[in-house]
């Protein structure tokens, strides 16, 4: 999952949880707050009454009577004061029902006993519960809507900001990682960002790529230079040996020695030539402007290898489509690629074996040529290294020098061709050439 999706998911979920938690807690909180507030209110009123009694005397309320009662028009609130003899002293707040003028209503009540001029009195102040609760619902609603609105607003803001924040990261990933091809030849300008972490990441990736590029260039240059420098001495040696061979006086043993030296030199020459070819491909020294018909090229390759095919009595079965045209390739290199693969298929085949060459189109994606031999096959653990230079899969030491497939790999890489290998040890191998095709 992408970081942005994760953050989006997390933010949305966490905020939803907060809203749900709030919805769950809100009635309790509101009830608690209003009850506290009512209690406080009742206490205030009690204080006022006591104050009045202190200042103006109890008769301010009693006006000659032995009790006092007053209530508001709709009986939401009332105050009752009476003398209480033998009443246990109380000072509580509780909920209970009272009958006021034939109406039974539930009140929040404050009962308080006090002494005034050696006489005991009981004060009761009440407030209907329904008045207390009447603001609960709208209050809850308003609180809920406000919260939901705020959370929604911050959510949008968070997501927009996260998107903005992570934009450089996306740019880094697409420009520095996804859309780059080894060996990172093109330089890419740094991604603009004020986030130091991203800056650091971007810088590190750029440095890493340029280091890889540098190392690769050095290796390439070395291969190219070394091969060039080796060619001249090899050339001189070869010519000197050829001249020695011409000497009529030369004894048979000496000549045989020179011949074997020439053979070894030949081996050296082939290695250096192959390395040069690989370095030239890696140096982009071939233009990719040719158009080829694979079946024509295959026929040419088979024709070129006719002797070997006939001498080993190998049967070639091919069924390539005649209508496929591959563009933007280097003909000579593709020829060499197919040549090397067919040559291997002949070389590692059984006497009188078969080579089957078929093709396949994956619409809008690739054109695949399968080259299947009935040869010795490649053991599974060696499959990964067969394209590496100088690695040779369990062959005799003097058979080839492991560069044929390296050349294939270089040519393939140069053309964005993927080569897949399937092999069963002892039964044969199938090399599949995936040409990009159809875009």
């Amino acid at each position, binding site marked *: 999952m992408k970081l942005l999706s994760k953050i989006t998911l997390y933010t949305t979920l966490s905020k939803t949880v907060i809203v749900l938690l709030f919805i769950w807690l809100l009635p309790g909180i509101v009830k608690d707050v209003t009850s506290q507030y009512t209690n406080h209110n009742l206490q205030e009123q009690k204080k006022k009454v006591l104050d009045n009694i202190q200042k103006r005397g109890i008769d301010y309320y009693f006006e000659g009577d032995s009790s006092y009662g007053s209530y508001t028009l709709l009986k939401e609130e009332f105050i009752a004061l009476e003398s209480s003899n033998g009443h246990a002293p109380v000072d509580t707040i509780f909920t209970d029902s009272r009958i006021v003028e034939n109406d039974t209503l539930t009140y929040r009540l404050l009962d308080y006993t006090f002494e005034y001029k050696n006489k005991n009195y009981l004060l009761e102040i009440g407030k209907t519960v329904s008045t207390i609760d009447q603001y609960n619902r709208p209050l809850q609603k308003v609180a809920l809507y406000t919260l939901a609105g705020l959370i929604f607003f911050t959510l949008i803001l968070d997501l927009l900001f996260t998107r903005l924040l992570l934009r450089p990261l996306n740019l880094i990933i697409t420009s520095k990682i996804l859309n780059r091809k080894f060996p990172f030849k093109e330089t890419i300008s740094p991604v603009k960002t004020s986030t130091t972490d991203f800056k650091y990441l971007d810088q590190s990736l750029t440095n890493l790529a340029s280091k890889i590029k540098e190392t690769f260039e050095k290796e390439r240059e070395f291969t190219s230079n070394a091969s060039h420098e080796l060619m001249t001495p090899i050339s*001189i040696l070869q010519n000197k040996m050829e001249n020695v061979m*011409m000497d009529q006086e030369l004894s048979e043993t000496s000549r045989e020695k020179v011949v074997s030296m020439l053979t070894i030199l030949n081996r050296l020459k082939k290695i250096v030539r192959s390395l040069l070819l690989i370095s030239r491909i890696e140096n982009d020294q071939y233009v990719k402007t040719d158009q080829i018909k694979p079946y024509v090229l295959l026929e040419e390759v088979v024709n070129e290898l006719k002797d070997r095919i006939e001498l080993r009595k190998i049967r070639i079965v091919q069924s390539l489509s005649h209508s496929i045209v591959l563009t933007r390739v280097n003909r000579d290199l593709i020829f060499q690629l197919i040549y090397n693969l067919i040559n291997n298929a002949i070389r590692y085949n059984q006497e009188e074996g078969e080579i089957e060459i078929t093709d396949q189109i994956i619409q809008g994606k690739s054109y695949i040529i399968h080259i299947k031999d009935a040869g010795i096959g490649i053991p599974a653990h060696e499959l990964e290294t067969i394209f590496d230079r100088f690695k040779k899969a369990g062959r005799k030491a003097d058979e080839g020098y492991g560069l044929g497939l390296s050349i294939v790999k270089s040519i393939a890489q140069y053309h964005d061709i993927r080569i897949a290998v399937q092999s069963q040890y002892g039964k044969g191998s199938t090399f599949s050439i995936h040409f990009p095709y159809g875009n």
Partner: protein
Amino acid sequence: MNVLIVEDEKSMALEMEFFLKKAGYLCDLAFTGKQARQIMSDHPFDFILLDLGLPDLDGLEVLKDAKKNCPEASYIILTARGDLEDRIKGLDLGADDYLPKPFSLLELQSRMQAISRRKSGLNDSVAPLGDFIIDLNKRMVLFNGEEIELSRREFDLLSYLMLHKNRPLTRAQLSDHVWGDFSDDDYDSNFIDVHIKNIRKKMMAFASVDWLQTVRGTGYKIKI
């Protein structure tokens, strides 16, 4: 035949000279581009073997000038650079052939002879080979006017041995000539044996092929 060898690597030039002299050519040497220009203006040549990697001048420039001064000479470009572009440019500028280093002196001689044959017409392209006649231009081997069917590679082998008659050639030299860049070492030297066997079989049906000899520990030669 006069040959000018333009090659900055002295020991290389000397080997070429040694070989070509034995093959009957008259050789001059030039180790720099300037030297080459000097010698070319002195007297004409039949062949100019030109290394492109000269220390003082661009080989291709030397070739351009030389073509003006010695238009009748045949040019073979020798280079260790081996770039495709050099090859194309060289041939565009009128070089007759191109040999990437390292090359076999035998190959050099055979290329020179091929150019001579091409330039001189048919006359010296036909030669006796035992009781047979080999026509290098038409690529045919005849016995009493009847053509012997040889495959392309079989003819290549036979004609190469013929060009270097009386000299033993190694299997590597033969496979290098026949397969060039695509030659595949030991793997191909076995094929050389098979090819020679086939050539012998095909020709023995007409007459003796004793002239096609196996040289123990070396390879093959045509002795006539």
